[in-house]
């Protein structure tokens, strides 16, 4: 489980997160929504331990990543995490196969046949066999996301962090990525944290949702709670209206 306790984060004079606390439910997908610049990706990087908060604590499976002093300590905690980045963040010089095999090669002592078996299973599960010899730049962004998903799941993490799953994708490919998330969640049962501003599309993959606004959690609940909410900011955000309490930054 991921537990975020009273997190404060600022960049210079700009306060981004101002006392965020939330327990992400194990085995469920929680989506963090909010307008651009509200600190969603910052929260993800704090969970990953790439950024350090000024105040507060983040526990992953009971271990504090904010109190971990060395990269080695952080890496032990990160072993529980998988991440699907916004742009998939595949390594340009490696083929699809090598990208998926990368965490196994770097972090385990598995033999080549064992690695091959696991990667082949993943290629099969995510329908990537025809592309395994291709380089990332030779496949579409949607397919890259699929490869990114395969890479993040190959170590069978307890927690999967997904940053803006369908940014830059057309509606059809975007839907394909949501279907992929649903498929993978049903198969691997991970605790999911999805960062998104795509409403109402993201409702379909969310068990729980939290909305960030002005550095705080503005609303938390199920997707239905968001739809039923009479809060002006929530409705403005869902409907994508310009008039309302949320101003464009």
């Amino acid at each position, binding site marked *: 489980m991921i537990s975020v306790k009273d997190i404060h984060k600022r960049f210079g004079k700009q306060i981004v997160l101002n006392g965020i606390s939330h327990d992400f439910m194990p085995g469920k997908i929680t989506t963090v929504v909010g307008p651009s610049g509200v600190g969603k990706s910052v929260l993800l*990087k704090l969970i*990953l*331990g*790439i950024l350090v908060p000024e105040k507060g604590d983040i526990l992953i499976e009971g271990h504090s990543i904010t109190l971990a002093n060395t*990269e080695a300590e*952080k*890496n*032990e905690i*990160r*072993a529980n*995490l*998988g*991440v699907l*980045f*916004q*742009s998939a*963040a*595949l*390594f*340009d010089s490696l083929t699809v196969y090598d990208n998926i095999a*990368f*965490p196994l090669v*770097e*972090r385990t002592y598995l033999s080549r046949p064992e690695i091959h078996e696991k990667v082949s299973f993943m290629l099969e599960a995510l329908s990537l066999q025809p592309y395994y010899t291709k380089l990332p730049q030779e496949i579409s962004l949607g397919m890259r996301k699929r490869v990114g998903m395969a890479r993040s799941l190959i*170590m069978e993490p307890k927690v999967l*962090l997904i940053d803006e799953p369908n940014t830059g994708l057309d509606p059809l490919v975007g839907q394909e990525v949501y279907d992929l998330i649903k498929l993978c969640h049903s198969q691997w049962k991970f605790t999911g944290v999805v960062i998104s501003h795509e409403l109402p599309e993201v409702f379909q993959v969310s068990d729980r949702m939290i909305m960030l606004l002005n550095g705080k959690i503005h609303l938390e609940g199920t997707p239905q709670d968001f739809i039923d909410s009479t809060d002006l900011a929530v409705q403005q955000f869902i409907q994508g209206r310009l008039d309302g309490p949320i101003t464009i930054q």
Partner: protein
Amino acid sequence: MSVVRGISAFGRGTIENTTGWGAAWVFMYHILVGIFSRPFRGRLILRQLLEIGFNSTLVIFLIGGFTGAVLAVQGEYTLSKFGATAWTGPMVALSLIRELAPVLTALMVIGRAGSAITAEIGIMRITEQIDALRSMAVDPIRYLMVPRFIAAVISMPLLMCVFTSVGIGGGYLVGVKLLGLSPGSFMGQIISNIDILDVNSGLIKSTVFGIIFGWVCCYKGYTCGFGAVGVNKATTQAVVTASVCVLVVDYFLTSILNRIFF
């Protein structure tokens, strides 16, 4: 008010520079620790040796050959005023081994491979590939920087040797075949006037330049700013900073090595 603004700008600049230098030294410390840490990534080092070293040989051949040729022409002209054209060979060889080969090799490799390293790492930074490495519990300094740094330090002296050899060859061709110098005298004078300490001096310089090249170019890429502008700026800064550092360090290194060796 303008005085206060000037003082505060000076103070801000000093703090930023000091912080930058501090971060660069910490970065270097992590690279040095990474060199002696497991796992040893032989394949990655070989790939970088190919990229930085082998792929630079053509340009080093060209520059080395023509530098040696020009030295022979200029040397023969100058020495002929003193009736000492027999010394053209040692003049070409000594100039190359002790000074021109290490410096020009470093400048060429910084321009060719250094900019590529900075741009590649910078793009990895802005496309979240470095964050991806960290999220997979792989230290980006050990995985990305250490192989490049080791390859830079190994490649530079080797390329300097190529530069020197080709340069002497270019000087020989021009001096003997075009200017009519005696071939026996040209090579004989080189052999009898070049000391192993001259070669050591060149090799030490090249190794130090390799360290500067690897350090600056990796650091600038790793700390690159946002977007295409950030990569552009980092690449320019890397090439300029590394080139200036090479020339400044060359002066001090020459002074020190001359005191120690000669």
